[in-house]
């Protein structure tokens, strides 16, 4: 699945983009499936906006974002849902877990829709990231770091051609970040998928083979 960005400028950044030197905004870019792209940007540069535009959550921009032939801003709800189930997975910056569900149930909600891994595999991943004992804990009671790891596993349980990560290690210490990055890298390679990692700094850039400055 090919990603194409054609002169995309978010409405609220229009005045900034005109004066700046972004290698993404107002550029024409194409990324083939399998590429691992690191989007480096300081706060306020529109990192999360880009992630939301790519995922079809934000439509207030000029230019076009296409996943193969699907225009992310113009696709109907059914098509966007299909993309999110079969082609694109995401880890949100703010995790977006259901606080009233347990860690396991949060993952189950995604698996019911599009899961392609077994219970044992998920349990193994929880152990691998050091939250095996938090399986039945309510999401609202987990620390940010634990929530972030649950959100990462939730993103990995489905099939995908592209994985989008928005500051996925922001609440993790170095050791847990390393483990999470290793799991992500393994899963992305298994699925021969592409990776887009948006982060403040380049601590985790080793996951990627290409860097773009926002």
């Amino acid at each position: 699945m090919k990603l194409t960005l054609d002169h995309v400028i978010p409405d609220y950044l229009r005045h900034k983009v005109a004066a700046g030197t972004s290698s993404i905004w107002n550029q024409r870019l194409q990324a083939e499936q399998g590429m691992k792209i690191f989007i480096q940007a300081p706060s306020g540069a529109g990192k999360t906006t880009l992630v939301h535009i790519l995922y079809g959550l934000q439509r207030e921009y000029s230019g076009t974002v296409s996943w193969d032939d699907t225009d992310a801003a113009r696709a109907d709800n059914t098509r966007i849902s299909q993309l999110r189930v079969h082609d694109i997975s995401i880890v949100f910056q703010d995790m977006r877990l259901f606080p009233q569900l347990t860690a396991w149930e949060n993952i189950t909600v995604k698996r019911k829709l599009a899961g392609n891994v077994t219970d044992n595999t998920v349990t193994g991943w929880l152990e691998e990231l050091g939250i095996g004992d938090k399986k039945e804990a309510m999401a609202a009671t987990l620390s940010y770091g634990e929530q972030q790891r649950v959100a990462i596993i939730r993103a990995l349980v489905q099939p995908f051609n592209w994985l989008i990560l928005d500051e996925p290690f922001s609440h993790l210490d170095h050791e847990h970040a390393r483990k999470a990055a290793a799991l992500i890298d393994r899963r992305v390679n298994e699925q021969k998928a592409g990776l887009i990692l948006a982060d403040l700094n380049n601590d985790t850039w080793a996951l990627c083979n290409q860097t773009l400055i926002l």
Partner: protein
Amino acid sequence: MKARKEPLSILIQPQGRGRMAIALSVLFAGVLLLLLSVLAWTDITQLSHNARDNGASSSYIVAGKAITERSMAADNTFTTAELSNLLHAPQVQDGGAVVAAQFPVYATIGGNSLSLATDLPVASVPDRLIDNIPDRWHWEPGQRALPVIMSSEFLRIYNYVFAPGQGLPQLSRESVKAIALTLHVGGPEGIKVTAYVAGFTDRVNTLLVPESFVQWGNSRWGSNGGPSQVLLQVKDPSDAGFSDYLQEHGYVTDARMLQWSRLRTIAGIVTSVTGLLALMLMAISGIVFTLYTELTVARAHASIALLGQLGYSNATLRAMLLRRVLPPVLLVITGAALCGTGVQMLAASRLASDGLILSIIPQWPYWLVYGGCATLLYVLLRRSVARATA
């Protein structure tokens, strides 16, 4: 330890259970009332149909002009125009004049055990309106033997009223057919014929003879006036349109059939009123369900939005919501339908002991209304969910 619900059930939990319970009770009452009113209507209709000719597809009734104080001296026979008009009345499929003999017919029966003499009411009707035309149903001038069809009512009156009082033997139909009657026709200057009972009829309360006999006698001794009665083949004599027609034109007929008509009219009014009340109750419960659905969606708004972000399409979310709110509604109306079926079974068994036959399972209009209620509520809730998730 209590097992947790399925995750999606936790995310979208129905809200306002108290109001839901009240709305379901109101819905149950509304649907049950509506179904019972349909049941009452179909049962009355079925009973009125069964009341005629043992369930045959049509009935035969005799109609005449009402004889009142004012019309006693008037001509109470039917004109050709009136007859033609009557044949086009609601529910009337066929008919013909009951032509009375306008000459005296005096019968004598001679024998050791049975001896009587009496005047007889004789008439003819078109052959096509006779239930069972006997063999040799024919007469021509000069013929000595005259076949007659006797009213079953005559034999009943004879056997149960006349014979016991006169010390005469009671007679079976077959023995009546074996008796020869001597008919003195046309008065002192008339003729004598030998009549024999060739059959019985339930359609008219008179002695039927072939049309040719009455025509011959009337042309010889009669006044050539029109018929005073008409035999009608009627699809549904309990139909309100038919009884209204008779009433408007001052015609009278067998009162038993018209009783069903009055009963059906009353049942119609009662079922209309209860049906209206039922629809009002259903409308109230429908409004409550709409509010309940919208409240459920509003409370689960954040979860629904996040489910959408994870890839649940609007169609899937709508189906999930519908699965939450629809089952109790369908359960309640199905419960009401089963209660109504129970009432029908009870009514059928009670009435069977009185000789009134009702179907044990409610008839198709009942199930049609049930299906209509289910469809209506499904559409209402579906629209409500679609509006709330838009």
